[in-house]
């Protein structure tokens, strides 16, 4: 999907032009020390074979889209011990089924026929098969030369009215910062439809009561302390 690359190039040039180096001087005790490769390290025993037990790429993917059936081998465990290049072929079908299952759950809660309430193409224009193919290959993309934005559905820098649909004015999928609301982004991608607000607690008959469920935001934001300097996370509570 090629979009207006000039926007990104402009952003890239701007970001290179600023060249702010990282300031690591005011959070904790800093020891600027070139002697870490000391003899102690060489004498330590790190031998042995280590076998993979857990995996994470994009946040929340295995937890929300893998589904364990009672009495069957755990799909979640299998996902954690599958290499990324084999994930899409292994897990996409199950992820898509799970995504549709979530919609069926709400169809029933709304008193509707589950056959009538299906996933709709999301703000990225992805159908269910494509979205789950992308998500099944569970890696986190991070751009070395661009600002980090997991996805900000609120940007419409060119004021063309397409607030939510990527049209070239977004810098997105460039990493994950601790203040990115990745749960809301995932919910919007799953339940938001083309405009991102398909199930967002709408009051359709204007009686002051929501008629559609609120599925596109969990309603919470960052509560922990984070920092602009290394190591970026707040001291333990």
């Amino acid at each position: 999907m090629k979009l207006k690359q000039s926007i990104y190039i402009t952003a890239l040039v701007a970001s290179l032009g600023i060249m702010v180096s990282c300031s690591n001087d005011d959070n904790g005790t800093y020891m600027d020390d070139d002697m870490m490769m000391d003899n102690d390290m060489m004498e330590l025993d790190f031998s042995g074979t280590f076998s993979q037990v857990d995996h994470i790429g994009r946040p929340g993917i295995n937890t929300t889209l893998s589904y364990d059936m009672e009495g069957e081998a755990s799909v979640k465990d299998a996902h954690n011990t599958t290499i990324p290049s084999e994930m899409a072929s292994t897990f996409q079908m199950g992820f898509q089924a799970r995504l549709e299952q979530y919609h069926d759950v709400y169809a029933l809660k709304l008193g509707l026929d589950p056959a009538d309430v299906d996933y709709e193409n999301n703000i990225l224009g992805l159908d269910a098969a494509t979205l789950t193919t992308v998500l099944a290959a569970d890696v986190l993309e991070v751009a070395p030369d661009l600002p980090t934005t997991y996805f900000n559905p609120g940007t419409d820098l060119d004021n063309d009215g397409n607030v939510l649909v990527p049209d070239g004015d977004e810098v997105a999928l460039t990493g994950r910062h601790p203040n990115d609301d990745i749960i809301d982004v995932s919910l919007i991608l799953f339940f938001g439809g083309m405009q991102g607000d398909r199930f967002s607690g709408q009051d359709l008959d204007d009686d002051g009561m929501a008629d559609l469920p609120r599925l596109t935001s969990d309603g919470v934001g960052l509560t922990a302390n984070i920092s602009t300097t290394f190591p970026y996370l707040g001291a333990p509570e």
Partner: protein
Amino acid sequence: MKTRKGYLMGLGALATIAAILVSADHIDAPSSAGTSADIADFYAFEPSEGSDNTVFVVDLQSNVLPDLAYGTFDEDVLTEINIDLDGDLVEDQVIQAIAKDGRMYFFGPVAPSQTGLNSSVYTEAALGDVEISGATAMVETTSDGVSLFAGPRQDPFFFDFFQFNAVISPELDSAPGGFLPPDEAADTFDGANTMSIVVEIPNSMLGTPTATNALGLSVYKTWVTTNRKQ
């Protein structure tokens, strides 16, 4: 539409759900959940606008729910940050971290001699080491400009996990209104700590990616694994 009754019944349904779901990767699977190798979360970001560095944050364990092994790094668990440059989803560079005697030792970035599910520590590619912190952050920076940290930190992940479980419950009266409005929703992870490993590294040490994301932007494709000594 959202009623207190529905909320309480949702919580009741939660207790009967066989697979408790917590994101981001917090407690994601039966075999790793609650162990010292359980990855809670992963962040990768540009530390400041225009920086030539990338920051990787790996959170292991979370104390948000009882019975989790929060508190120490397991010396038999090797954490690997995998970096794919060309988009084939096979790691081209790895950064390793493993605890020993109160310090966290880092290796790489190095092209792995074997990819896949088994690893060994690349001792010939030592990157640096740092004392495992207590409440005060102890950080090191290497002559290459790599910053290193390991220790307990606040878990920055935020999610109304209890309501999520009510939302996904198939019980018809469980959270029919979906998630709660902001004034009623609660961050389940508020007050939780995690065991964090943080590496800030110049991009020049990782290589130039040819992989692109869905918007055509150049990206590293990254993931984290924990690996237990056999």
